């Protein structure tokens, strides 16, 4: 397997950094990430981590250029960011010759937030429109909320990253700076620089520009919680949709566990392509659905397995549920062949290589593995974790977690 080469260093203030050189194109990705996501927010301030991410783009100006992005684009660069349940990441893409300028700008913005009320109010409006666009104004938009409040009830993973409209409105400047002060520090952060770089020079730039990030210990905001605490059962939700859908979800262990990788195999068995068990039966043999897919989500402290089935006109939810249940029971009993496992491993191998082709993907992976696992080097052997899964691991994971007795079923039905 091809390896990604990298060098891990520690800056003078203790901040971790990972450098990876790749001269494929004359371009570099700088990514700054903090172990601070929506699960680290106070219970009544949901949406805070993500609102802070929005505010990180408006604190700097240069002559007539009024925002981070405008200055960056003068350098030929572009930026983006995301907030997840567990982390927040800021990316810059820049031509190699502009690396120093971009780092200089980036370091200023990390310390120069515009927490003025006017700015916060505008970004709150923007975030609420983001929520409208992605959740409230689209078919099945409430799904993540409906799953979260049952499957992750009373845990920090209960509410999706975006937060609730009311709680977003209630966030104050103090809340934001409190969160920033607590988590945006050396113990919680990592910088990855990937692409067409000179290693020595980049190391110098990193020390020169990022050494004033506040030195502090890592913050652990939540403890572990038990996997049993969730409501299973069946619920009906009315939505502005034309055709019904069935969503079945399970709690599984967190990212990196054997069960997590086994769940990826199970997803492949169930819905990985036209020849998979559920696609074959639901879509092609019985014409009940036009689409079926399953997904595995691994957070730092919990995980989730989901099966989504979108029904054809006239098809019945309970029939679809029954077929899914029968097939889950079949896998629980070990009703699949060695060939099925080989097939999934081939698929995992292909997607592994496909996923690491850009500097952006490499930097994101290096950052994630630095923050949440033993080493950034995991980028090179993460695939082994998936490939060593055995038939027994699959059956054990099914019996323990992805078992029809532990299902949360949501039926979405058309409201009109």
């Amino acid at each position: 397997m091809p390896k990604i080469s990298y060098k891990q260093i520690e800056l003078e203030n203790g901040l971790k950094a990972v450098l990876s050189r790749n001269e494929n194109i004359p371009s570099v990705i700088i990514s700054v990430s903090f172990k601070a996501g929506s699960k680290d927010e106070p219970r009544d301030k949901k949406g805070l981590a993500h609102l802070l991410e929005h505010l990180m783009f408006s604190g700097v100006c240069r002559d007539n250029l009024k925002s981070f992005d405008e200055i960056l684009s003068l350098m030929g660069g572009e930026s983006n960011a995301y907030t997840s349940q567990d982390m927040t990441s800021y990316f810059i893409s820049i031509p190699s010759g502009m690396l120093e300028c971009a780092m200089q700008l980036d370091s200023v913005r990390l310390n120069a937030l515009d927490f003025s009320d006017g700015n916060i109010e505008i970004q709150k409006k923007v975030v609420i429109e983001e929520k409208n666009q992605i959740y409230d104004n689209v078919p099945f938009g409430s799904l993540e909320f409906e799953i979260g409040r049952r499957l992750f009830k009373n845990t920090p993973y209960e509410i999706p990253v975006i937060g609730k409209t009311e709680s977003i409105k209630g966030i104050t400047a103090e809340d934001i700076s409190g969160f920033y002060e607590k988590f945006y520090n050396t113990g919680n952060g990592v910088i990855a620089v990937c692409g067409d770089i000179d290693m020595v020079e980049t190391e110098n730039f990193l020390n020169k520009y990022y050494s004033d990030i506040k030195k502090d210990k890592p913050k652990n905001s939540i403890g572990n919680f038990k996997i049993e605490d969730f409501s299973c059962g069946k619920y009906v939700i009315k939505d502005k949709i034309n055709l019904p859908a069935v969503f079945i979800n399970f709690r599984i262990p967190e990212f990196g566990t054997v069960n997590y990788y086994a769940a990826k195999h199970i997803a492949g068995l169930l819905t990985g392509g036209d020849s998979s068990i559920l696609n074959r039966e639901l879509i092609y043999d019985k014409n009940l659905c036009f689409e079926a897919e399953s997904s595995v989500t691994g957070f730092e402290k919990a995980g989730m397995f989901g099966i989504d089935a979108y029904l054809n006109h006239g098809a019945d939810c309970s029939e679809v549920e029954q077929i899914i249940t029968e097939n889950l029971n079949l896998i629980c009993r070990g009703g699949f062949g060695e060939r099925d496992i080989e097939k999934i491993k081939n698929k995992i191998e292909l997607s592994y290589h496909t996923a690491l082709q850009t500097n952006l993907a490499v930097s994101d992976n290096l950052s994630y593995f630095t923050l949440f696992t033993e080493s950034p080097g995991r980028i090179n052997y993460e695939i082994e974790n998936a490939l060593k899964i055995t038939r027994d691991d699959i059956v054990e994971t099914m019996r323990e977690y992805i078992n029809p007795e532990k299902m949360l079923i949501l039926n979405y039905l058309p409201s009109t």
Partner: protein
Amino acid sequence: MKVNIDIPKRGKPRNIKFPEHFEYEFENRIKLFVIEDKRFPIITARFVFKSGSAADNIRSQGKDGVSSLTAELLHKGTHGLNSNDIAERFEYYGTMLVSGSDYDASYFTFHSLEKYFGEMFGLSEELILDSVFSEDEIRNLKEIRINSLYAQYRSGEYLAHKAFNNKLGRESGYSHKPEGCICTLKSITRDEILKFYSDYFTPGNMLIVLVGDIKPERALKLVGEKFSKWQKKGINNIETSKYRNPERTELYSIHREQSVQSDICLGNAGISRNSPEFVPVVLLNTIFGGNFSSRINKNLREINGYTYGARSYFDCKKYSGEFLIETNVNIQYTLLSVNEIIKEMELMKKNRVTEEELENAKNYITGNFPLQFETANAVATKLLNMELYDIEKDFYDHYLARIYEVTSEEIIETAEKYFQTEKLIIAIAGDSEKINRNFEGKFSVQKINDADLIK
């Protein structure tokens, strides 16, 4: 906080040579391209036919979707294999397979591990040359497609774009989306699919692009063995299809009850991809709405907070193109947002952009240009587009120098030509009960209730 950073002047950018690749034309006119990338043990094969949904209605009207059905059916059965066998054969090796149509091309693509590539390539030959298009599989595929479209008809973004496309495209081949619509799909017969296949899925109309861990010699040998005996057949040129602006602005309102946002699609006829104006258009669009810091996003998002984002595009197709602005705004700002967008279009025509704004846009385009060649598949897309849209071979070799030469006068001229603010198509999916009355007297408003009526 004010930053004092010395940003080095970029000056005239160095041109970037188009990445190396291998090219060969077979006796039967199949063109082969190979882009070798040894860094990853994977290979992508892209089989492309230079006709897409713009050709759907050439033989008879009301056949929206026939090209994409034909392309998708390629992996639904041959004389020797049924659709289940085919899926099982590809998927066992982990191979990812997709086929379908775009406006100007139909494609059959697979991504495979290098170690299984030979087998996958052989299987593809069988599918492309020996598909049976059985009645059962046609029925199955139509049912999936019709249900999936029916579900999509509740998405405001989908509906707004469908209406926009349809009204600007008028009677041209670009007036419908490649997936077709429910009533046209129902009417398509097996004979029409077979006809489409024999008209357009021909060697003279075919490009094969192999990307990844493969040497040109191996590619040449494989394609030669599998496809060079395919009987030579001519290229099928289709009638030119043009978008056309209306005489005066038309606003279409697609009703979505209790919608909290309005999905807006607004614009004019644009340019074809090989138009000589492509370069100034790229600059115009970058300044106006092409990225995060461009004018309409700054206005609607950063200053007013009406939306999560607003962007504009020149969507350039082979014979014509559309210029459109897409945004999703809070319902109470629907009229205000439309007014602001039109105001920004007017400003582009009225005032010259400052040298600073122009330099900023040029630097942005130049700096981000290499990312368009980061993966071998991205290079393949560029190569394919050059073939599909008749772009001159050395286009990208001179692209940055041309970008650098564009002046603020050219930006104004281009805006004057393509920002026809009196002749817009505006499509809005939202709560018509609440928004339509605001537009009355300002635009001619037509209400659409059923998604299938947009045709």
